[in-house]
């Protein structure tokens, strides 16, 4: 009631629009203009070109003449009628789910482990993680390939020496499943540091007294994790999950380099390698653009759920 009364007392403002006032009002927009300009140039224009390209027949012939031929929705319909596209999509979705799940579960577990370690071991583990983080992807792929190669892979040697079986001349890249497994291992390994460090930081926000209280009340450690730690971790995990989905669905470098160009085929495409094969190797850039736009929408759909959750969490707090 009091508030309502107070608002009534405010005089209604009727000020005339003058040039000075208009100028002053424009200042924030002027200030933000350079940023909008830069973003427009860096993001907007390429995106516009991509969309335009996707409606054109644009192969090597057109590339040389710098002029595409408009073909309407032909690129999209040919991609959507391509069996390979649907198989690749299904494979990529399964691949993404597996990668994201491994990354988040292992990352969170490692972060929890970090909390319970002695400072020395924690420093060691953290430095190890930072080293992983700082390794360029291409270098990591090369090292990984070197360790697992058929002729004299270190992994093959070590596993054999440990009497875990005869891994001499074991081909880790023999089947699609095995190839995907190797790529998953590499991606999860590379993605762990970011997840661990972020979750570890979030875990530091969990008040110790709450955990203590739960323990005194006789809650099991799983129960404590689920009901005390989890609600506080949730926003962070949501961000990490949605970022991981974005990264893993469109991943290209690891599968392309680890499996190798000579071994990529419709039988082991992921969306990234499929796009590269159709767009660049076959030099059908219009079709490539159509695939990348479809990918854009698919990932947007995949992440909408998570972004919505995040926004909702933000609304509550």
């Amino acid at each position, binding site marked *: 009631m009091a508030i309502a009364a107070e608002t009534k007392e405010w005089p209604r403002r009727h000020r005339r629009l003058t040039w000075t006032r208009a100028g002053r009002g424009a200042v924030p927009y002027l200030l933000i203009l350079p940023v909008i300009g830069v973003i427009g140039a860096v993001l907007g224009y390429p995106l516009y070109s991509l969309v335009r390209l996707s409606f054109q027949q644009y192969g090597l012939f057109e590339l040389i003449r710098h002029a595409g031929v408009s073909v309407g929705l032909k690129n999209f319909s040919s991609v959507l009628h391509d069996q390979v596209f649907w198989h690749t999509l299904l494979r990529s979705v399964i691949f993404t789910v597996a990668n994201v799940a491994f990354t988040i579960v292992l990352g969170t577990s490692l972060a929890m482990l970090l909390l319970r370690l002695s400072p020395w071991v924690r420093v060691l583990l953290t430095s190890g993680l930072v080293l992983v983080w700082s390794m360029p992807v291409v270098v990591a792929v090369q090292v990984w390939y070197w360790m697992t190669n058929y*002729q004299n892979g270190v992994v093959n040697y070590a596993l054999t020496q440990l009497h875990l079986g005869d891994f001499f001349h074991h081909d880790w890249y*023999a089947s699609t499943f095995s190839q995907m497994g190797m790529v998953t291992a590499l991606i999860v390994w590379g993605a762990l540091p970011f997840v661990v460090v972020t979750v570890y930081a979030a875990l530091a926000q969990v008040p110790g007294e709450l955990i203590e209280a739960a323990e005194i009340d006789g809650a099991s450690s799983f129960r404590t994790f689920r009901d005390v730690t989890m609600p506080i971790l949730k926003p962070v995990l949501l961000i990490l999950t949605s970022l991981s989905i974005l990264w893993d669905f469109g991943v290209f470098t690891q599968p392309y380099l680890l499996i190798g160009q000579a071994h990529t085929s419709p039988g082991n495409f992921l969306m990234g390698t499929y796009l590269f094969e159709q767009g660049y190797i076959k030099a059908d850039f219009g079709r490539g653009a159509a695939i990348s736009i479809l990918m854009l929408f698919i990932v947007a759909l995949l992440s909408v759920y998570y972004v919505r959750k995040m926004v909702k969490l933000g609304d509550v707090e």
Partner: protein
Amino acid sequence: MKARVFVAAVAAVALGVVAATASASGQHHQANKLTVWLQVDAQSGWPDVVAAANAQFAKDHPGYTVDVQYQNWGDHLQKFDATLAGGNAPDVIEMGNTEMTKYMAAGAFADISSFKGTFDNSATWLKGLAASGIYGGKLFGVPYYAGSRVVTYRTDVYNKAGIKKLPSSLAEFTADASKLAAANKSVKGFSPVYIAGTDWYFAMSFVYDFGGSIAKTHAGKWVGNLDSPQSVAGLTAFKNFFNATSKASKTSDENHPAPYDVYSQGGAGSIIGPGWFSCCVGAKFKSTTAQFVMPSHTKGQPMPGFLGGSDLAVPVTSGNKALAADWLKDFISTGSEKSLQAKGNIPNATNLLGSSVNERAAARSWFVPAAKHWVDVENGNILRNMLATILKGKLTVKQAAANASDNITLVLNGS
């Protein structure tokens, strides 16, 4: 709200996609500079030939410099496409002879027919190699060099296994391989003949040796021919030979690992590949390495080998076409070609041919179908997949060949 969320998601993804696809490097044409793209083979094998051509060019054109940039086979076409789009393509580019047709058909190269007379030996160019640079009767690429495939072997290992005479038929070679295997039981993973499982260059030699082929034309259309009885017989012979001689991974290709690396580590008695493989057999085996021609299943004949080779072309975007042609003249001169020959390559003209093992192997050769879309068959790994499937025994030779053949028909006819 929903819309906002969706836009936010799209924007976030777009950032990622654009970051992944946008990459261009600025490089502007300089009036007094000639940019040349050669493959790394020249950098590691014959840098002196390149330097000599550049020196000659600099002498004829004072004030001009030649910028030679070395490229890899794996991605040089993608880089070339990018420079064509960006308007900074080189003035001269080396192309694999199987890669030429697609680019000539798209109009990527300048017609250099009028310069033909200025090139040494242009009247006696190797027919097969020169043909890969001609499209619609016009000259778009000049032959640079060719290479056949031979057997590089360790004389000490062959002697120890009691092989007195080099094999003159496929059956003899297979029998020798089992002698080699028996004599080297102590070497773990030893391959009497190391062959990468998906080395399609070698596998197709069997197909052509048995009278088959990859594809043929019928009524103006390409038809895959790997499912013909002759081709299937060739593929079956390849499978049997591989199983009898090679311990390589069934899915490996001939670059990972390089066969000469396996050889130099003592893992192979012989390897199949270009003549210049002798470069890299390792100091330990340098003195005990020799080469012979891969024998056919018909006694006394060589098996047809893949006649690989390179052409040199002038991209249509070059602002210095006459100068580029002049550099070509220096680079494929008789002197250059003789130096290339000395390094184990086949020179580009018949009057320069000698009688090295390499050149004898080229007496019977095969080449890929001269189709515009051939390079898509190659890069789509249709043949490699077929070979891996056959060797792993997932499908019978006949089934795998039929699948690949259908696929090749589709791709070659441009769908």
